[in-house]
């Protein structure tokens, strides 16, 4: 067992999740099973494989391009024109649980 219930509760707390008492053992089991699988992957020798942060680093890019040019297609110029406009405010606020028509509103934040 790599993770115990206290680890699950810690992670759930960080994620703002409330787990009921009967959900906790299931989460412990699932997380351990995932970590066991990672252990299997760790058996592979990857010492000569470069670390990869994003799969899109290797796949879906024009392989003939090098350097900055390789990923340039996924960036943009610093201009408004021709790009997506900002939303009208009423639309931006439409899904808010609470608002006063100008601001999103949340229960009073005391800290910070």
């Amino acid at each position, binding site marked *: 067992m790599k993770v115990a219930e206290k680890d699950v509760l810690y992670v759930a707390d960080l994620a703002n999740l409330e787990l009921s008492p009967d959900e906790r053992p299931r989460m412990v089991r699932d997380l351990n099973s995932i970590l066991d699988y990672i252990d299997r992957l760790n058996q592979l020798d990857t010492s000569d494989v470069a670390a990869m942060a994003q799969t899109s680093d290797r796949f879906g890019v024009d392989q003939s391009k090098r350097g900055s040019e390789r990923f340039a297609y996924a960036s943009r110029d610093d201009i408004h024109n021709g790009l997506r406009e900002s939303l009208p405010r009423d639309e931006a606020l439409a899904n808010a649980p609470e608002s006063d028509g100008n*601001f999103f509103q949340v229960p009073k934040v005391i800290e910070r």
Partner: protein
Amino acid sequence: MVTSPDTSVAARARYEPVIGLEVHVQLLTVTKIFCSCSTRFGEPPNTNVCPVCLGMPGALPVLNRKSVEFAVLAAMALNCRVNETSIFARKNYFYPDLPKGYQISQYDKPLAEFGFIEIKTNGGGSKKIGITRLHLEEDAGKSLHEGFPDAAEKTAIDLNRSGVPLIEIVSEPDISSPDEAYDYLTRLKEIILYTGVSDCNMEEGSLRCDANVSVRPRGQKQFGTKTEVKNVNSFRFIRQALEYEIERQIDVLEAGGMISQETRLYNANQGKTYAMRSKEQAHDYRYFPEPDLLPLVVDEKWKAQIAERLPELPEARRARMVREYGITEYDAGVLTATKNLADQFEEAAAAAKNPKRVANLVQSELLGRLKAKGLEIEQSPISMKGVALSADLVESGAISGKILKDLYDLCFERNQDFPAVYGKEKPQQITDSSAIEKMIDEVIAINPRQVEQYRAGKKTVMGFFVGQIMKATNGQANPKLVNDLLSKKLE
């Protein structure tokens, strides 16, 4: 007012502060870092927002190339090594003004590392403060806690700032006094302003600073437990907050207590820091690579293009100006306080007949008057162009040094620039040779000893005669004419 705890001088001397600074600088792009919403400050709340910066599910970030260029430019100006490949990462935490529940930042592979800023030390030497890293990230929105009818129960959120590009500049813990921290920040701001990538406006939050501070017994290698001081909105307050916090920590230790690692807020009105109530787990951000963005690659070619836009930086400029204009290091510092001012000065100096004279006038006539009036050079009634014009007039002999001084006084009295005052006063020079000749005759007649000295070969006595004539004419005689006529009469 700063009210410091009562730490004895002897106790203070036993400890050494260790300070590191984290500075956030907003980049002057037109649009946000990952969407095309405007970055403009002061717009009606929640009008510069879109699915990306509101954190709507499924919205994808697209990187603004200009934000990268600005960050690289700042990194170069701060002597950093720019990494060819850097990775965006998600920093996970919950706060109402962070709509996605994570901030897109950079973590283990930042854009730039290993920089430094040089500051002056008390002894007249200099000290390098290391820069650990400089990375790109997005800003969060703004929480407003006061000023609303229901402010007692609610916090209002404006997401216009959400997604505005920032660079975070993290220093090494190389700073060992509040004064050094102040100097580091002043230099940093000056350099960033020169690059033009930010306006560094602290009131608008374009430059924000958090300080990590601890104390340790002098000579001890190991760091003490640090606290993080936040919520400080001017360099002066940061210095005060650090002074307070250092003494507070020493007091705690001297009383046999322990420093708890915590975030403290500075209250400028009271001059004190207060521990912020917060959850213990607040700092577990669970960074992981941002899967919605590609690696950021700044290759040599792009880097070279960006480097072309790197201006001459303040330190180098000061050294060159001392060399070129023969001014003091201090005055060069005043003239390079902002890039704009230095540009104005150099432009005016270059257009004048004698650039050095422009520098001399700034040094001898302008700065002293500004100081006497308590004005910053940006508030000077006399512009650099005005100084240049006055320098040319002196150079050509159209006005004397005495008249120039009078005109400068008038400029300050009336708060008008030199050309306006000169145009109105049109100081009349005495250019009537016969009138001057008459005065010269009188002066020669009553100073026979000096005449003898001159004729015996002591040519420097000439200055005495010129001075006498100028005094007699209230400085209004044309100096060149006076010189010519004097030479003739004395030979």
